[in-house]
Each structure stands twice: as structure tokens, then as C-alpha cells.
């Protein structure tokens, strides 16, 4: 039944081809080329769609404010908005993966995930600051430096997520659904205040400023010309994109190409049967938390490097946005998290860039529009953009 319906709609078939991972073909196509193409396609589709809307607005309201020509402003801002949208979009996507992976195996929203993201940012800061204090930061190779910082953040956030699962969620596995949710909120509060207290003791300050200003290659913006417009691209934006792409491709390989990944997929389909087949369910759940936490940690430190300053309170807003992204893409669906994250990030950048010209609204209406679109999409596609397309979660 299902397959005949798919065949009836060519557009659906196209989307399906794009969002269901291929199971045949050479490994370089399955695990490198295909995910890269997918990411590029998502970005292009969203960017084209939003640019079209921006130009439509410019056509409808040529001069929303005296002496401001919207068309001219859109032309000037378009590359900048797309770049900032992509960089924050990847951050949201990486956080959203943590929500979605855990939902895939446990059917439960890990509300402490935003704090795991924050801890990643703090660990990244501590590592970078310590390298700086030891005097090595100028001499280290940039790739080595960034890799060390990101890996340290991934490892510690991943282990933290595993620990939280062991302490706060596993004892409640057979409890009613709401109980682990409350436990997650408790963990979230605890982590915020714990980090605040720890940093107050160590540094007597919890505005943690990454020492990025000490590095010439991280500080200067790179001017890139798009036709007549020159955009200053921050090196940290490039690092976010590269870091996110590399880790996302690695995740795709891990989930779809390794034995452990097959184990996770099996547990997400049916825990009891997977257990009967000899899969260690608890270990797979821990592993899922590790992977999700590691992604949150990487996102935290990349975000921290980009914005410059991290506080223990920084996780909440990106966490909520990323959760929205996961729901938008279809919770439990890895490709959906990527699509949802990029959509929310780009949408936000476009709204922040253009709402300025409508004095009755202003930038503060950004979140209202973002969540309005979420509501609209959920009314028409209750399981998210890609939710119903995927037969196996994760």
C-alpha cells in the first residue's frame, strides 16, 4: 500500500530519494558523497526559498520606511544573512541531533541536553584558555588546536550525557513517561548552577571569554566578494561549517555503516526484540547518549568560539530552538534534525535581517514568526517535515 502511494506522487518520490539513506552503492557514495550532497541540497533549497520570499517582500513593499529601498538592502544583505543563517543553523542541527537520537531510542525528550551543550562550551573554553595560559596557543597548528578543543568538548559532554543517563534516567526507565521528564529538568537546573558555582570558585567570574582575540587568524574577518557586495566572513563561521559537516558525515557513517550503529537502529525499532537478538540494550542506550552528548558538546564549543563569550545560562535559548528544529524536521529522524536546524537557523537570520525595515514589527518579532511557522507546519504535517517518510527511526 505504502509503496504504491509513493509511486503515485513523483515529487514525494524525489524527496524520498533524498531523505532515505541509500543502502546500496560504493561506500564513498553512500557515506561521503551522498550526505554531502544532501547537506548542500538542503542549504540551497532553503536559501533559494527564503531569498525568493525576501525579493517578494521587496517587490510588495518597495520602500517600507522613508529613504530605505528594500530591494537595495536585500541585495546588500543576502550573502551575509545566508552565511550567518548557515552557521547558526548547523549549531541548531547539531544540538537537535542530541534530542532526536535520544528520542529515537527512548521516546523521551532529554531536556538536560541544552545544558550538555553549555558544558561543551565551557569545557572548550577551559581547554583553549589553558593552552593559552601555557603559552602554546600561538605555536600550535590551527587545525590541531581546533581539533583538540572540539574533541575535548565532545568527549567530556558525551561522558557527561552517559553519566546523566545512568544516574537520572535509567532508574526511571519503567516509570510513567512524565517522571524522567521531570528528572531531566532537574538535571538541567543542577548543571547550570553547578557550572556557575564551579566557575565562580575557579575563575571568580562566569562570563567565560574565549581567548580568540589573541589569535590573528581567528580574529580578522575574511572579505569575500559576491558581485558588488563584499561580506566579511568570520573565520569561526567557517570553522562551524567545516566542523559540523565533518562530524555529520561521521555520524551518518556510524549509524548506517557500522555494527554499533546497526545496534542502535535495532534498539530504536524494537527494544525487546533487539534484546532477544543478543544486543546489549543498555549499552546501546548509553552509546546513543554518548553520541548525542558529543554532538551537543561540539556544538557548544563551536558556538562559544563564534560568539566569543559563554555563560552557564547560554544553553537555554539555543536548546529550545534546537528542540523546535528537531520537532520541525520530525523528531526521531536524523536527517530531519539536520533539515530542521538549517531551516530554523536560516529563517531566523532572514527575519532578523529584514524585520528591521518594518518599524511596526522590528527584530524582536523574530521568534514569534519562527514559532508561528513551526505551528503552521505541525498543523499540516503533524509528524514534522520528514517525520512520516522514515520507516526506521534514527
Amino acid at each position, binding site marked *: 500500500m505504502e509503496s504504491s502511494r509513493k509511486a503515485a506522487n513523483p515529487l514525494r518520490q524525489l524527496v524520498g530519494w533524498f531523505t532515505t539513506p541509500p543502502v546500496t552503492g560504493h561506500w564513498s557514495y553512500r557515506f561521503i558523497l551522498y550526505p554531502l550532497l544532501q547537506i548542500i541540497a538542503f542549504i540551497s533549497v532553503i536559501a533559494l526559498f527564503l531569498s525568493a520570499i525576501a525579493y517578494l517582500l521587496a517587490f510588495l513593499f518597495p520602500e517600507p520606511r522613508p529613504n530605505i529601498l528594500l530591494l537595495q*538592502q536585500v541585495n*546588500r*544583505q543576502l550573502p*551575509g*544573512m545566508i552565511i*550567518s*543563517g548557515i*552557521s*547558526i543553523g548547523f549549531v541548531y542541527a547539531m544540538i537537535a541531533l542530541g534530542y532526536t537520537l535520544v528520542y529515537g531510542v527512548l521516546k523521551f525528550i532529554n531536556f538536560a541536553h541544552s545544558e550538555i551543550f553549555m558544558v561543551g562550551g565551557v569545557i572548550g573554553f577551559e581547554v583553549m584558555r589553558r593552552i593559552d595560559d601555557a603559552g602554546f596557543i600561538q605555536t600550535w597548528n590551527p587545525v590541531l588546536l581546533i581539533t583538540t578543543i572540539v574533541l575535548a568538548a565532545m568527549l567530556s559532554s558525551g561522558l557527561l550525557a552517559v553519566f546523566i543517563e545512568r544516574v537520572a534516567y535509567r532508574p526511571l526507565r519503567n516509570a510513567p513517561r512524565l517522571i524522567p521528564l521531570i528528572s531531566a529538568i532537574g538535571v538541567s537546573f543542577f548543571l547550570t548552577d553547578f557550572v556557575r558555582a564551579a566557575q565562580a570558585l575557579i575563575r571568580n567570574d*562566569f*562570563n567565560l*571569554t574565549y581567548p580568540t*582575540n589573541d589569535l590573528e587568524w581567528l*580574529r580578522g*574577518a575574511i*572579505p569575500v566578494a559576491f558581485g558588488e557586495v563584499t561580506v*566579511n566572513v*568570520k573565520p*569561526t*563561521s567557517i570553522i562551524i561549517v567545516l566542523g559540523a559537516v565533518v562530524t555529520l558525515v561521521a555520524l551518518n557513517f556510524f549509524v548506517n555503516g557500522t555494527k554499533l550503529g546497526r545496534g542502535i537502529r535495532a534498539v530504536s525499532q524494537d527494544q525487546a526484540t533487539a534484546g532477544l537478538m543478543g544486543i546489549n540494550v543498555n549499552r546501546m542506550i548509553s552509546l546513543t547518549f554518548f553520541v548525542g552528548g558529543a554532538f551537543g558538546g561540539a556544538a557548544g564549543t563551536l*558556538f562559544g568560539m*563564534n*560568539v*566569543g*563569550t*559563554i*555563560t552557564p*545560562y*547560554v544553553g537555554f*535559548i*539555543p536548546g529550545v530552538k534546537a528542540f523546535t528544529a528537531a520537532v520541525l524536521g520530525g523528531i526521531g529522524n536524523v536527517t530531519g534534525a539536520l533539515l530542521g536546524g538549517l531551516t530554523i537557523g536560516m529563517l*531566523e*537570520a532572514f*527575519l*532578523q*535581517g*529584514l524585520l*528591521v*525595515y518594518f*518599524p511596526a514589527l*522590528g*527584530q*524582536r518579532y*523574530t521568534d514569534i514568526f519562527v514559532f508561528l511557522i513551526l505551528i503552521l507546519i505541525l498543523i499540516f504535517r503533524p509528524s514534522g517535515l520528514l517525520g512520516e517518510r522514515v520507516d526506521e527511526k534514527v
Partner: protein
Amino acid sequence: MKTSRILALVLVLVLALSLTSMMVKAQDMTVIKIASQSPLSGPQSQLGVGIRNGVDLAVQQLSTDLMDMGYEIQYVPYDDQATPDVGVSNAQAIVADDAILAVIGHLNSGVAIPSSEVYNANDLVMVSPANTNPLVTDRAYPTVNRVCGRDDLQGPTGANFADSIEGVESVYILHDTTAYGQGVAEAFQTEAERLELTVLGFEGTEETANFDGLIQPILALEPDLIYMGGIYSQFGIFINQAAAAGYTGLYMGPDGFDSTELAELAGDAAVGVYFTSVAGPASLYPNAAQFIEDYTESFGEAPTPFAAQAYDATAIALAAIARAAEAAGGVPSRADVASEVRATENYEGLTSTITFDDNGDPEIGLYYVFQVTEDGVADADGDGVADWQNELLQTLEIPSPLMAAAMAEMEMTPEATTTP
């Protein structure tokens, strides 16, 4: 069973003894308490702790008069967390304690306005070292006073200065949506429009980390100056990111920028940032040398902005309590203390000579324009904190609105006197 009974008996005895000893002590000396409210935790705690320390020092040094009269002065600091809800619930705890006769606070106008409703309903006097929103005193409450200037004069001070900078023709205004930030930004906007500067945008934001999206339209509009109504903890990060994204114009902010943390957060981009203030650094005031020495000795760091104002506010409150106690011949009522505070005339404080007008504003307010310098961002003394030695560009003495109206009535021109 038996041991627990004995234990309970011992406990009861100890309690009873300690209670009686407390009562004996209380009979010895009547306790008068001074409370303060400021953010002692959270991102703005650096300024809030400075206020607490200023009050603490004043209570230690200036309560001798009252002690001679047989009163014991105690100081109770409260943490308002820069949050209106917390400020109000603290205020309710404060008014419930009958021994508290004066409150020094707050840092944030958005917290001071609702909290002072509680104080005023209970006749408790508040002397504010730092709240600049016009509404704080424009409600004309007999209990609400401040020793600093007002945003509806501070914003225009900034706008006038911006207009005087060569090459500044357009401004972009951001604010943090709080009573303080939005209020001062609106005052700046009104004056900027009057001076025919082009206002390219007026935006409020609660964002605290990622300003990428907000910066894009600013880059496209190319304002000569960005004015930010708000506090360093948010806009320091903004300045850092705007500079990294390639914005090359000028920055200006209100007194919420007056913190070494701004240099920490904005990095090198902080150099050249202009800010107006209602409170200069203590080192600016000739009377404050002793204060700086005592403060540094007691708290191990130089006084933060508003610490000297907190000291002055406390001094005014203590003097008023002493006068009221003398007049009443015992512990004065809160209303008596409030009217004595309002009656303060030509009080020679560290920061200025203060006479309150009928609304509780100082009759003449001092307004400053500073620019962050290389020295301000540098850390010459090696304590890990920027030195914050910034250049004072302008000092203005501007009368409060009531005073200005009175002067106009007397056919005097209320012109601001400028000293270079």
C-alpha cells in the same frame, strides 16, 4: 529512647538559654538596620557587589553618631539578582522587618520601580545610588530619592556629544528592552532626531550570545555610530561580534557600560567606545581619596562605579535617621526618616553636593562623557582585570526637570554649564 529524651531536654535548655541571652542583648541596645538591594549574583554582580561594599563601608564608618545615641546599626544586604520579581519579594521581606529604617538600592531601574512601590506603601525610604530611569522619581513618592542623574538627561547628553563628533550623521539604536535600556535609548533617539541626526534603526533585543543576525542589517545600513541602551554584559559581546563582522563605525552607550568587564567582553574593540555616565569613577572626585584607600583596604579591589554613590546614599540615610531620632527622642518612625531624607540640604558627599528637589532628584545632576582608551583596556597592574582608566571628555551640570522649571519661572535660563 532514654538518650534521645535526654538529648531533647539538652536541646531545649540550650535554645532557651540562647533566647534569653539574645533578649538581654536586645535590651542593651536598640537595633536599627540599613538594608541594601543590588545584584550580588548573575552577570551584573560586579556592579552590584560594589554597591554592597560601598554601603558596608559607610555603615562601618559613619554610624558613630547613632551609636553614641545608644543605637546599634546593622547592615543587611539583599541580592535582587537584577530581576524585578526577586527585588519585589525581597522588598516585602524588608518592609516586614520593623528594624529596617532605610534601603539603599537598586542597580537596575526595572527592579527599583516595582520594588519601591512596596517601600512607599510602607513609608520606608529608599535612596538609590544608580537608578537613572525618569519614572523612578517622576512618581513623586515621598520615600524615593536618588543621588545620581536621570536617563532623560543622560540620553540627550549622549546624543549631543554624538552630534558634536565630526563625521557622525547617522545613528543606529539598540536597547535591551528593560525599563532602563529602552528608556535611555528613547531619550537618545528623541534628542538625536531633534539634532537632525538620521536614525537608521531602533531595535530592542534580549539576545545575549549570538548577534550575527542582528548585525547584518547594521552592516548594510552603515551607520556612523551605534548607540546601545543597556548593560555591558550584553553589549560587550555585541561590540566584539560587530567588530569581528567588519563594522568600522563608532559605539556609544549609557552608564551601564561603565565596567571593566566591558573591556573583558569586547576585547580590543572596546577601545574608542564612548559612554555617558551619571557616576564618574571615585578617582574623579577630590573628596574621595580617603574613600578609595579605605575601600581598597577593606575589599581588596578598587571601588567599582556606583560604590562611591552607594556610600553617599548611605551617609544621607544615616544622617537623616540621626536627625529623626533626635527629633523623636527615640527610634523614629519610617515616615519621619523619609521626610528627613527628603529635607537633606547641601550634603557634601564624595561625588557631589546634594540637595533633593520635591521629587527626590538631586537639584543639580552631574553628567559625564567618557571614552575607553588603550590604558582602559590594558592591564598594567597585572591583576587580571582591565585597569579601566578612561578619558573624561566632558562634564555637564544639568538641573533636574523640577529645578529647571523653577529656574525658568524665576526667569533664569537653565543653561548647562560646560567645563572642559
